[in-house]
């Protein structure tokens, strides 16, 4: 059966959830071959095999951590070479993922599709990428017409499914290109773990905007997020006001999210914000202004003050859980 190369994002061998989702997508197209590079990479092999990876190509070298992006491109290119002609290369969306995929596409003379919200099997057995464009007002289906289709897939595009496979671990030989060892990481500070899921990966996102009214008031947003096991997002207005870190900004110039449930509190729904969350499956909004454009999108909306609605909602959820 044709092989599908899957780039695995991990931290010290702990595989990111979107990479496991990619294995679900990959199995529709062929036999998944997982590529995992960097410190602790070998530790990821077990979970990758449990989720359908037939082969796991592993490369552990210090270069992956010491230099920006390009060593990983070299690893992925080596994996594509080792496979021969894969039916597709899948990478999950994110700053670095997009860049790895992009450089691989140039190197292999291939077309690239980014931000796929789903991948279907085309008439020829090859991948057809489904995208949601123009602030989700259009759904497009695209095909790569040259080279090996390189597809960057958004988180939550597919469920994580257990599918035990061989998961045969092989050492991947990578010869680093001259460009790989140029952009050096001279200092690295890990982000403080909030204990909450990653914003772009989360199944549920609770966001706060201008209506939150201050940094300290984000506690009500966080409390609801914790009750739901959700990530916390923020609108640009809230971020620009310094109430919440930029890494949590949802929108055109921040992060694009497409969770199962998105709760917008105190967010009017400027077009730039909508562009970053409109593909969410279910949308709930709480806003004092009945004219707020966010209400045009919602599955359920409450015209009211988030400072009373959110705590009541949080209490009720916690009450139901107990």
């Amino acid at each position, binding site marked *: 059966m044709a092989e599908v190369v899957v780039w695995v994002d991990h931290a010290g061998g702990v595989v990111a959830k979107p990479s496991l989702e990619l294995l679900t997508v990959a199995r529709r197209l062929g036999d998944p071959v997982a590529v995992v590079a960097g410190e602790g990479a070998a530790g990821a092999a077990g979970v990758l095999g449990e989720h359908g990876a037939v082969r796991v190509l592993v490369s552990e070298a210090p270069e992956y951590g010491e230099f920006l992006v390009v060593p990983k491109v070299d690893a992925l290119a080596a994996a594509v070479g080792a496979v021969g002609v894969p039916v597709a290369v899948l990478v999950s969306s994110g700053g670095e993922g997009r860049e790895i995929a992009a450089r691989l596409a140039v190197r292999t003379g291939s077309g690239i599709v980014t931000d796929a919200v789903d991948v279907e099997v085309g008439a020829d057995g090859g991948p057809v990428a489904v995208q949601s464009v123009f602030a989700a007002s259009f759904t497009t289906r695209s095909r790569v017409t040259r080279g090996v289709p390189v597809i960057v897939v958004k988180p939550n595009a597919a469920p994580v499914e257990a599918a035990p496979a061989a998961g045969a671990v092989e050492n991947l030989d990578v010869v680093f290109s001259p460009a790989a060892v140029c952009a050096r990481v001279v200092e690295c500070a890990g982000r403080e773990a909030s204990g909450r899921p990653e914003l772009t990966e989360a199944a549920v996102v609770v966001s706060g905007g201008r209506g939150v009214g201050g940094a300290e008031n984000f506690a009500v947003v966080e409390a609801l997020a914790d009750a*739901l096991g959700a990530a916390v997002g923020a609108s640009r207005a809230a971020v620009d006001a310094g109430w919440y870190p930029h890494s949590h900004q949802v929108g055109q110039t921040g992060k694009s999210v497409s969770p199962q449930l998105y709760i917008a509190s105190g967010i009017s729904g400027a077009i730039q914000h909508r562009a970053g969350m409109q593909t969410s499956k279910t949308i709930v909004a709480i806003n004092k202004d009945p004219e707020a454009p966010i209400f045009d999108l919602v599955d359920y909306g409450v015209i009211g003050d988030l400072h009373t609605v959110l705590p009541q909602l949080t209490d009720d959820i916690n009450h139901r859980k107990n």
Partner: protein
Amino acid sequence: MSLRIVVCVKYVPDAAGERRFAGDGTVDREGVDGLLSELDEYAVEQALRIAEGSDGEVDVTVLTVGPEDAREAVSKGLRMGADRGVHVEDGGVHGSDVMGTSLVLAAAVEKAGFDLVLCGMASTDGAMGVLPAVLAERLGVPQVTLLSEVSAGGGAVSGRRDGDRASERVEAPLPAVVSVTDQSGEARYPSFKGIMAAKKKPVVEWDLDDLGLDADGVGLAGAFTEVVEAVERPARTKGEIVTDEGDGGLKVAAFLAGRKFI
């Protein structure tokens, strides 16, 4: 020592306007107002700050590829304070995907001459966010991308890259391709002086011949991807909206329970 900065900018349809597809599967720009992509303004801003903070001679060129009205993106950069402009316009470019566009940009950047290429993190229309990396690969130079802080000088560029898991300080020797995020620093408004001065600044116009490119490699003919279907999504059916009468939170909880979220 002089430093040549080329800022790649894009003229994009205003996101506030209605966007649609033309018959050939490309974006229909008729009747849609355009503007310099907001994210590219940050790149222009950083180029100008590098120039202002430098002891040596710094030359800032604003480069765009696009139809006639895309020249406005270059003009905006000049009004902000860039020294010169390059506008690549050729009918053959219409319908280019990122592979075609990057081929044209790479050729133009090389023809213009560069030590540093500055880009926005993504366009506000296509929003793929891959062009800076593609350009670096094509030019064979390091990429130092998604920077929220940038400085350049002494033959090197350095900055801070805020990733999903970590914040990194990165540096690379020049020449290099850099992209900056919207956190890099508010872009300036053109001053009256800047607006007047921009009128006298040189803008060169190149076509594919000038860049030694074959029309087959770009445009729709040279695209590596094909949109096989574009379907307008029915507008979301507006859900139920209630006014909080003291039980708003309980009502949301009931809705969420009904959808099995709790």
